[in-house]
């Protein structure tokens, strides 16, 4: 029976603020799951803490709402034990790039075949609007007592530098485009990262929906001037086509340079994709040949309540 979009929705009341950018992301994620026809019981959404952490409760697949900053650790453990499962991890920018930044970098190095989506709004919403890692130095969102004293993290640049093999940015008010990006990210073989710009209507009064739409710019130029543009419209080729250092370095550098673009022009779309890097699963399979056919979650460990693991050879080698 083919699954419909509605099948991926739970009846849990969604308590995000009216106009929250998160709605667009959860819709895009449900649409992407429906489009790919992933069975509800073959996917798990792992989430962090904060407004975005509630996402897993709104999606009718397995959902694991974890603790602050650690979502990637739970998600990788789940995926490695049951590699047949589709795994999407979600969380805020404070969660993933503040408290969880170490896990972000380590996950990049591992390249486990799963997707990580950051709901990027520059503030800690659920604790009433403190500055989060992507807020620019010197900016003062409305509940800050004084301007932000920290330099901002560049999520795309950090992902590229950490070894993520698919790095993209979406915008939560362009749901179709975001859905397409999620589909690409999930289908990517390796760890995919999606930075989703998501205005917080309650606490971020700088990067608002109107600001992204360029309403302020339009006033000056008298024409519509959205800040957001799509890389795919600009002949940008993010894909590493062959495994040579020069090719990889060129694609990495171009992604890094693009990631620095901000202000009046903000790129979305795929910045970097490299499927020529081995996934963590492949690295495990190199050591454990039947890991994928017989992963941890499928292994038979007992029969009639007795262990079936045969350690007799090992024990004999210890015998005196």
């Amino acid at each position, binding site marked *: 029976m083919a699954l419909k979009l509605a099948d991926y929705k739970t009846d849990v009341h969604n308590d995000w603020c009216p106009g929250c950018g998160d709605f667009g992301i959860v819709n895009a994620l449900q649409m992407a799951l429906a489009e790919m026809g992933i069975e509800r*019981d073959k996917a798990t959404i792992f989430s962090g803490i904060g407004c975005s952490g509630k996402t897993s409760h709104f999606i009718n697949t397995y959902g694991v709402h974890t603790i602050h900053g650690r979502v990637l650790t*739970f998600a990788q*453990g789940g995926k*490695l034990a049951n590699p047949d499962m589709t795994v999407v991890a979600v969380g805020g920018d404070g969660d993933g790039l503040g408290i969880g930044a170490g896990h972000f970098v380590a996950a990049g190095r591992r390249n486990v075949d799963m997707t990580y989506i950051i709901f990027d709004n520059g503030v800690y919403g659920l604790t009433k609007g403190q500055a989060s890692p992507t807020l620019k130095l010197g900016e003062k969102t409305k509940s800050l007592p004084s301007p932000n004293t920290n330099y901002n993290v560049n999520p795309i640049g950090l992902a590229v530098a950490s070894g993520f093999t698919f790095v993209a940015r979406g915008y939560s008010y362009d749901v179709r485009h975001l859905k397409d990006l999620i589909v690409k990210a999930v289908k990517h073989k390796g760890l995919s990262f999606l930075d989703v710009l998501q205005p917080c209507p309650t606490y971020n009064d700088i990067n608002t929906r109107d600001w992204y739409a360029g309403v302020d710019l339009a006033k000056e130029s008298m024409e519509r001037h959205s800040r957001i543009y799509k890389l795919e419209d600009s002949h940008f080729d993010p894909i590493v086509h062959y495994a040579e250092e020069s090719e990889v370095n060129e694609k990495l550098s171009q992604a890094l340079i693009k990631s620095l673009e901000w202000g009046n022009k903000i790129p979305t779309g795929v910045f970097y994709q490299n499927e020529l890097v081995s996934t963590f699963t492949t690295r495990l399979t190199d050591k454990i040949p039947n890991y994928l*056919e017989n992963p*941890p979650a499928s292994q038979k460990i007992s029969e009639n309540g007795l*262990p079936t693991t045969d350690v007799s050879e090992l024990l004999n080698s*210890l015998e005196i």
Partner: protein
Amino acid sequence: MSVSSVDFTWLIGGPQGSGVESGANIFSKVCAEMGYQIFGKREFYSNIKGQHSYFTVRVSDTNIHSNVNDVTLMVSFDAETIFRHFDEVSSTGGIIYDSELEDVETDRIHTLDSPFKERLHKFLESKNKPFTIAGVLELAKEKGVTLYPVSFKTLLESLAHDVDNQRLRGLIRMYNVIGVSLSLGLIKMPSDSLIHSIDMIFSKKPQIAEINKQVANYSYNYASSKFENFEYRLIGITKQPNTILVQGHYGTSIGKMVSGCRFQSYYPITPASDESVYLESHEILQVQNSRPGSTAVIQTEDEISAMGMMIGAALTGTRSSTSTSGPGFALMTEALGWAGMNEVPVVITLYQRSGPSTGLPTRHGQDDLLFTVFAGHGDFPKIVYASGDIEESFYDTGRCFNYADKYQIPVVHMMDKFLSSSVITCKKFDPNKVSIDRGKLLDKIEGEYKRFAFTGDGISPRSRLGLDDGVFWNTGDESDEYGHISEDPQIRIKMMDKRMSRLDLISKKIIPDDQVVSFGVHDYTIISWGSTKGPIIDAQSMLKKEGINVGFIQIKLLHPFPGEYVQSLLKNAKTLIDIEANHSGQLGKLFKQNVSREIDYFVLKYTGRGMTSTEIYDSLKKIIENKATKREILSHGA
């Protein structure tokens, strides 16, 4: 020492990285091959190369479970070992040493730290001896110790000459083998067992084995022909069948393989990482009547990640575990609460070391008991279970996984550095004595599924990520039966009661013998937990030989604490003695909280060195003779 029994302690020391451990491995293997029981123990600094490390191997013809204070034979190829340990050699014992070292002064040894040097100088001054090797050896000799000087350099030179292989001259890395072989020659251990052990240890490097054998034979013959007047002979006894020679972490490692643990995440930390490295070295597993299985061993970026990954893996129905020490466990506690909240069966193997903070990172301690029992914010159920020795830890690992699955809670399996750096002979682990009980883990779902459904016993049938029709939600927030966030006060009461009711269930269901082990209850009875078991039962038998009966109960289930059961076991005990390796008597505190009785005496040690049976024997004698203070503090060991 009675004439009929063998009780021999050998000590080898040297700078870290100089082959002390491999020397000790050869010696242990030879003794075990010759039928003896052994109890070996490694002490080392938090250092890669250069600092003093030493290994004591106690050898006996009966079962032993501990070290004793006295060293029977010390062998040393460096000066520091002599400075640090000469005083431990018993009056009937011997010291084999490199005679080239006789003139070495304490000030030349840069790794002799000043507090130790000051104490030694004061002592030597009081005895009117120079601050040299010759000085301390004179003292040993005056005490009755037999000295066996041998120039390691000359020995190698003459061997090089005899076999016409100049490469052997000055081959300092052979000094450990020389030391072992001289020792074995002195005690007349048959030399073929030495050669056989070298062959086994270097089985993959035949050329290295050959050189080692040459050196071994030569040194062995040197000692057996030239050394005299040593009263100890270890000529071999009948081998006990089904005996294995194991290192400290083998119990939990092999226990995990047999129990079906298929996912282990960890972050490197002493003394826990040996277990994970061993699991990875044996990652492919043979399975009866089935294709091979495997353990995915994942080294993570920190212990928080190790904990998160383990929980993620456990949610798929995989038996999952991590292994860590105090500082790492401290980082895991937030997620421990999540596992408790979400009823996730996981096993955390906690190899304690001396805290607080970094503490004595390569030394022993049992000071994480209260921290572990109370680890995590909020009220949630967990099990804290402690093993007393390596053999026990194999079977306990199986128990811990069963407890985790049956009660759907995190289990902390407490081990420690004393256990992890021991090498012992014990009865071969028997996998047939391990059972696997996965509790209410489901293979298929019928009807509507609620992960946290209210049931009679407080435990809900458990789906796993990826199971057909078994969709559920988890959250660290309070939740309803589906696992969705709920802040409803009535749901809160029901859910808290559901989770916490497990503690009573555990106390009722775990069989009493698995909660507490009684080694007899008498007027004087010891309570203790963990690795003090070995030295305690050895001290118990020492006293028994003198006609003194001292009781001992070993508490294995530390949370939920078996208060009533312990109280009933102790009803005939008049004087209670708490023995543990920490400063505050942590078990005593837990005891007081759960049993309405006072502890009469505390025997405590927090030097970072494990307790010896001699020390426990001595303190028990003091207590019985009414000469002890309320807190007896032990301090033996360099």
